[in-house]
């Protein structure tokens, strides 16, 4: 017996903000034979459970909640009659763009695509990755799982909460749990600075007098069946806990907001080279990976702070996929960005077209009074000053068309000059 095989010009894997934006942009650029594959029972991805506001200021000029932001794109998808399959899991993507997928109605099937956009999003780092010693009781959740339980299932994970990690989801959940009647005793951050947005520290912690302990981590977990307490401690410059600062906090819940990891299992199955720093694919300015016709955008490419930027990036991928399907081929040259370390990574990592390009990047630490530079050999081709840059906030610069046209073709160094 042979499995059903269908053909599509464009298949978009993931129906979250990235996938929907890419689909809409591809449609608007002329692609009609396209299909979104979504593993969940509705479009929208993680935005479904992000009921807080703050989405859409860049994209729509107004402040929306996650479901509202997703709904805007869902409407656009419907208006264009873009085809999608829900409850459909992609099991494999081959380098020659054959997708193996499964769902209840159609069983296992193959899709042969001219172009593929990877938009699978990211997942949270679990407890195991931290190797925190202690017991393994109930009551330890990643912040996103707790968010799903509270917002989608209407269930309270606990009443007395400690949060490890000051990523945005952790901060948002500190407020959410507090509003629902829980007591958040502490938010602990291993680093000397928060990984979350300043506005979330303000409105999620300060508003509710929730203490944020920087350079602090959880060193012990107690409780046989259900969590009974955690022990926290300050850490030294090498991030090693200082024994004299250990303090036990009775609690029934520990939420973890300790980082997000792009979900690149399918990217790997397609033999797409990954960037070790972003854990996402290496891409050019079109968000095309190093495998022709396979694109990546959104949190599967690199973890974003703002969905607005996910939409923007995904639209780039969608338009470029349309051009690729229309016959545009990638130039043979590739100019590579080489971050200096203070700049940890760039997206795109490579430039293959002599045109204007927006370069997104993250920095390794909090730096003040910096000058961002890009050099082509000895020649500085970009320079801009900034009062403050932080790891939690993605930066972007624009290289103008004439600048890109003038490049020698050598690798470009990008970095920061810090004058404290």
């Amino acid at each position, binding site marked *: 017996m042979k499995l059903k095989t269908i053909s599509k010009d464009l298949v978009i894997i993931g129906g979250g903000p990235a996938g929907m934006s890419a689909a809409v942009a591809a449609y608007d650029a002329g692609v009609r034979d396209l299909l979104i594959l979504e593993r969940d029972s509705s479009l929208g991805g993680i935005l479904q459970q992000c009921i807080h506001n703050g989405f859409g200021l860049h994209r729509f000029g107004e402040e929306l909640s996650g479901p509202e932001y997703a709904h805007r794109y869902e409407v656009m998808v419907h208006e264009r009659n873009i085809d999608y399959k829900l409850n459909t*899991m992609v099991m494999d993507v081959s380098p020659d763009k054959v997708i*193996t997928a499964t769902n209840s109605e159609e069983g296992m099937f193959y899709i042969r695509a001219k172009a593929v956009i990877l938009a699978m999003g990211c997942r949270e780092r679990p407890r195991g990755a931290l*190797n925190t010693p202690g017991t393994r009781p*109930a009551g330890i959740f990643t912040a996103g799982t707790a968010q799903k339980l509270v917002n*989608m299932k209407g269930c309270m994970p606990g009443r007395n909460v400690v949060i490890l990690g000051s990523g945005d989801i952790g901060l948002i959940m500190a407020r959410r749990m507090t509003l629902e009647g829980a007591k958040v005793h502490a938010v602990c951050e291993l680093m000397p600075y928060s990984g979350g947005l300043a506005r979330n520290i303000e409105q999620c912690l300060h508003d509710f007098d929730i203490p944020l302990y920087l350079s602090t981590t959880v060193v012990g977990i107690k409780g*046989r069946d259900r969590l009974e307490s955690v022990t926290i401690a300050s850490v030294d410059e090498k991030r090693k806990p200082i024994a004299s600062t250990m303090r036990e906090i009775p609690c029934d819940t520990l939420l973890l907001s300790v980082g997000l990891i792009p979900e690149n299992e399918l990217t790997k199955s397609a033999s797409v080279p990954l960037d070790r720093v972003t854990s996402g694919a290496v891409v050019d300015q079109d968000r095309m990976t190093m495998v022709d016709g396979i694109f990546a955008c959104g949190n599967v490419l690199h973890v974003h702070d703002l969905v607005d930027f996910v939409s923007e990036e995904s639209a780039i991928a969608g338009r470029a996929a349309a051009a690729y399907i229309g016959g545009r081929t990638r130039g043979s040259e590739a100019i590579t960005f080489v971050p200096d370390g203070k700049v940890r990574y760039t997206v795109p990592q490579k430039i293959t077209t002599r045109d204007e390009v927006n370069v997104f990047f993250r920095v390794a630490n909090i730096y003040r009074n910096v000058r961002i530079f890009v050099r082509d050999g000895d020649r500085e081709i970009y320079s801009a000053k900034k009062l403050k840059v932080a790891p939690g906030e993605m930066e972007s610069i624009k290289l103008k068309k004439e600048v890109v046209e003038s490049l020698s073709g050598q690798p470009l160094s990008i970095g920061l000059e810090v004058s404290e």
Partner: protein
Amino acid sequence: MKNYDVAVIGAGVVGGMISRALSRYDLKTVLLERRDDVCMGASRANSAIVHAGFDCEPGTMKALLNVRGSEMMEQVAGELGVPYVRNTSIVVGFSDEDRGKLEYLLEKGRKNGVRDLSIITGDRARELEPKLSPNVKWALLAPTGAIVCPYELTIAAVGNAMDNGVELRTGFEVSAIEHKDGGYVVSSGEDSVFAKYVINCAGVYSDKIAAMAGACDFTITPRRGEYMLLDKESGGMVKATIFRTPTAMGKGILVTRTVDGNLLMGPTAVNIEDKEDVSTTEEGLESVRMQADDMVPGIPVRQVITSFCGLRSVGSTHDFIINQKKPGFINCAGIESPGLSSAPAIAEYVVDMLEGSGLALKEKKDYNPTRRPFNWFKNLTPEEKDDVIRKEPAYGRIVCRCESVTEGEIRNALAMNPQPHDVDGVKRRTRAGMGRCQGGFCSPVVIGLLAQQMGIPFEDVTKSGKGSYIMVGRTKGGRKK
């Protein structure tokens, strides 16, 4: 009070294998377990190795039963549909002094009847296992060494026993044993059963259970063993199981791939008092990391997806304690390593003991030693999967993304003997939540399926037995705990 021919106390791998061996015969057997699920003690947290049997002292019960158990395991695992891989064990030595220790192991192994042992050079060992440390000078090669999934094995053994008529009673924490009417009244609080024969497989508590029956001439010391489990991405670092030369505290820290393709390293060996303390420690995990790194340098610790701790039951005789101090009351105690490897042989041995003490064994006509594997779906070809999904659409819904576990597989596990009652029970049976995200995405779905199957509210589902509640209530207008 219900009457049984045999009551087995403790649903670990030993109790499970004995129950299964008894289920072949026309007997009324009950398996008593204090926890809410089977396989909640040492059987769920160990090295998952089927030892070849070279390091047991010749002439001991351990030596006898390990070698026999190791011979039986492939067939038993096959019948039970449990993954088993004969992946070879390699003991590495870093010096010529270690070579002496390897020679000694080889000698013991030959006395114990272990087949095909040989000593090879470090270079040869690195040909077999390229990631081995350049400092490895000599190695003992044991091709009969194997790996198995210990909790699947235990769950499947109990399940197969139940399919063949054995009754499982969970939540039955034995509080008293009374010798009466040529048998024993075994009580858990107000609840009691009567059995002509009692088999004590209570792990770290087997001394306490034996004492209740007045049949205790030993003590059990819990020995903590901490492990780290790595992502499947690292699973390919070694094919074989890599051991250090053993010490008085056991076989030392090993590095192995698991049958599911992860990399496992551990255990530590620290004797403790508390029979419940399965917490990991910073020192323990650090020593696992250091010692593993000696053998296989460069194991990526950032690939650790979980760490855990198990308690081995170390008996005061330093051998398995399998005896009948009182008529009809059989101890199976001190079953530390190589207990998993020995379990099928222990079962065979105990059945012989029972027969020797007068239990009539009449084979059942309808005994079925086989069981459909939990992972039957996973191993199908895409065409076969398509076929299954068309008949049962739930197999087209992926619940656990990391391990590709479908709703169909979870529903199947929920309906199979022994039925899981909590999230971890589903995880051990189906691997849902066992992958790199550790249940972040799938646990709410698994909770929903459990709630539906058990007919309880969503928020009442537990993680791992009573008291391990996941939620404290509902946010709006619902009950609050």
